[in-house]
């Protein structure tokens, strides 16, 4: 489908081309301008920010003091640490359990296969609702524990179905011959299936990691202590509720401009996603769509 224009297709008109170009440019700019503006403002000095009136579009020198401030201890540093831990631990737990269950459910005809599959798929149609979930999570003693941000959402059945679909698309002969050679299921999963499944693992891992990094509402619901707040809670209270965070070790007068600090917090919240996602993106279609169709 890429490459040259098919011979039977009409030559595009000048108006059509211009319209298309404008639409594509607009699509890109609508995403890039906010990112650019926030980035530049976070790196601007007080004079530049005041001269621009709040948001800076044209950089005049680089002033990284806002980043120094938020990384030198205080609530933002702690929240970044909390979010990193939750993201890493959560992704490991989610990926492990999802891959195991996806493999366990990938063989029609095994004991309990239909029942178990139904048990998993039924979650698409029936969901518990906020109040009972809250009661269960607090009831099992997870209130104010970071595990409350991980365990209740650890299994995404959607992701599981995608991984299972991908596993079922692998060549059966390969697994069968390993089985004949006496390899156990765990060994087959680890040695044969996983190395062949990197695209889907990467994509599903990204989905999980992004979910954990973005956790906000569950933190609002379950986390009471300030020192366990993930970064999204801090971002919300700073920008949407206008509270100024506390920073240790610096007097208020010597702090970089509030606007730069706020935008720096936005940038550190965006950064992990922007940095990781392009490497995974090329697997999207291969990993997910194919997995889903085969499923």
């Amino acid at each position, binding site marked *: 489908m890429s490459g040259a224009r098919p011979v039977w297709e009409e030559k595009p008109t000048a108006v059509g081309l211009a319209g298309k170009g404008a639409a594509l440019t607009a699509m890109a700019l609508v995403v890039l301008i*906010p990112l650019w503006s926030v980035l530049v403002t976070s790196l601007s000095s007080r004079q530049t920010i005041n001269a621009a009136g709040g948001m800076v579009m044209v950089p005049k020198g680089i002033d990284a003091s806002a980043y120094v401030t938020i990384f030198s201890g205080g609530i933002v540093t702690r929240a970044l640490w909390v979010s990193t831990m939750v993201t890493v631990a959560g992704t490991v737990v989610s990926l492990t359990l999802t891959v195991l269950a996806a493999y366990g459910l990938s063989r*029609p005809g095994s004991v309990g296969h239909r029942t178990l*599959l139904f048990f998993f798929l039924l979650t698409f149609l029936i969901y518990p609702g906020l109040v009972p979930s809250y009661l269960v999570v607090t009831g*099992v003693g997870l209130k104010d524990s970071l595990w409350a941000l991980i365990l209740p959402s650890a299994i995404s059945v959607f992701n599981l179905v995608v991984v299972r679909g991908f596993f079922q698309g692998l060549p059966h002969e390969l697994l069968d011959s390993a089985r004949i050679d006496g390899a156990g299921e765990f060994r087959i999963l680890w040695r044969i299936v996983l190395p062949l499944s990197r695209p889907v693992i990467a994509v599903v891992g990204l989905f999980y990691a992004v979910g954990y990094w973005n956790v906000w509402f569950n933190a609002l619901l379950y986390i009471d202590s300030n020192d366990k707040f993930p970064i999204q809670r801090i971002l919300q209270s700073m920008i*949407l509720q206008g509270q100024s965070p506390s920073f240790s070790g610096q007097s208020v007068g010597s702090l970089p401009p509030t606007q730069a600090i706020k935008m720096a917090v*936005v940038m550190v919240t965006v950064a992990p996603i*922007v940095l990781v996602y392009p490497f995974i993106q090329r697997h999207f279609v291969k990993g997910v769509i194919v997995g889903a169709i085969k499923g």
Partner: protein
Amino acid sequence: MSTEVPVAAGPSAELARPPAPEQPPGKRRRPRVPLRARLRRDWPLLLMTAPAALLLLVFHYLPTLGNVVAFQDYNPYAGDGPLSAFLASEWIGFGNFETLFGDPAFWDALWNTLSITAFQLIFFFPLPIALAILLNSVISGKLRGFIQTVVYLPHFFSWVLVVTFFVQMLGGAGLLAQELRQAGIEPPNIMTNPDTFIVLVTAEAVWKDAGWGMIVFLAALAMIDPNLYEQAAVDGAGRWRRLWHVTLPGLRPVIVLLLILRLGDALSVGFEQFLLQRDAVGRDAAEVLDTYVYYQSITTGNFGFGAAAGLFKAAVGLVLILAANRVAHLIGERGLISRQ
């Protein structure tokens, strides 16, 4: 690659199959292999599935059963934990539902939810289709890849981030207001105006997810047989007629599928998005069913009532999705769940 289901988002493709047709019907060999032997063969698979199943049991099915507190005057202080409080609380039948249906704020929230769903069905739903068709017509693979990379990105941002970006761009102290003021124009009130809130939340949803929404349609477009286009062109169909007679029919199953999913979710319109902006815009415009449940239960401790509202929402959602699926069958599409 199987082309039975043209292209579908994961769970749908999965549900579209009758569960595990392992044997051709008619000659199902049932207990040929005794259960004990099958267990000896398959226990590792069961062991692998167990942890995930356990988590779903505790955090999905247990709360689903827990919805029975909707029929209680649940008192969280009646015991030293939710379970003992549940056992000690009084059963009041449909009392919570009576209160719910008698509360004007509930009907306001329901009305807001349905208006926003309808509005987004018109102004959001077709957008990814149009964008995908536009992008698919770009010949340069590099340009296509670049645009995809850029417009997929906001899908991975949290709602806190999305609202933050909108505040920084369109809010009272944002980029737009600042530029307008410098040009001597009084900036309009965008982020806190209840009258235009429905447009704002739709714009936010579009910014976050319209790009990502293209991905299924792009995959479906790639699967349309290029010969169909060529034959249509040879028969004298121009580009608009080819769009109508080749492209759109090729996308039809995916469109129907996503419509069913959206209709089944008609009572959900992005909980976090509304919770984050409810204070700035006010309850009249920004209270939707999900935020109503939250403010009527978690913040007040009125759990039985909140569970009743949540149960109502889940029940209506289930009916909606089954009804939409039925309609899809009637118009000759496979829909979400096949008849078995």
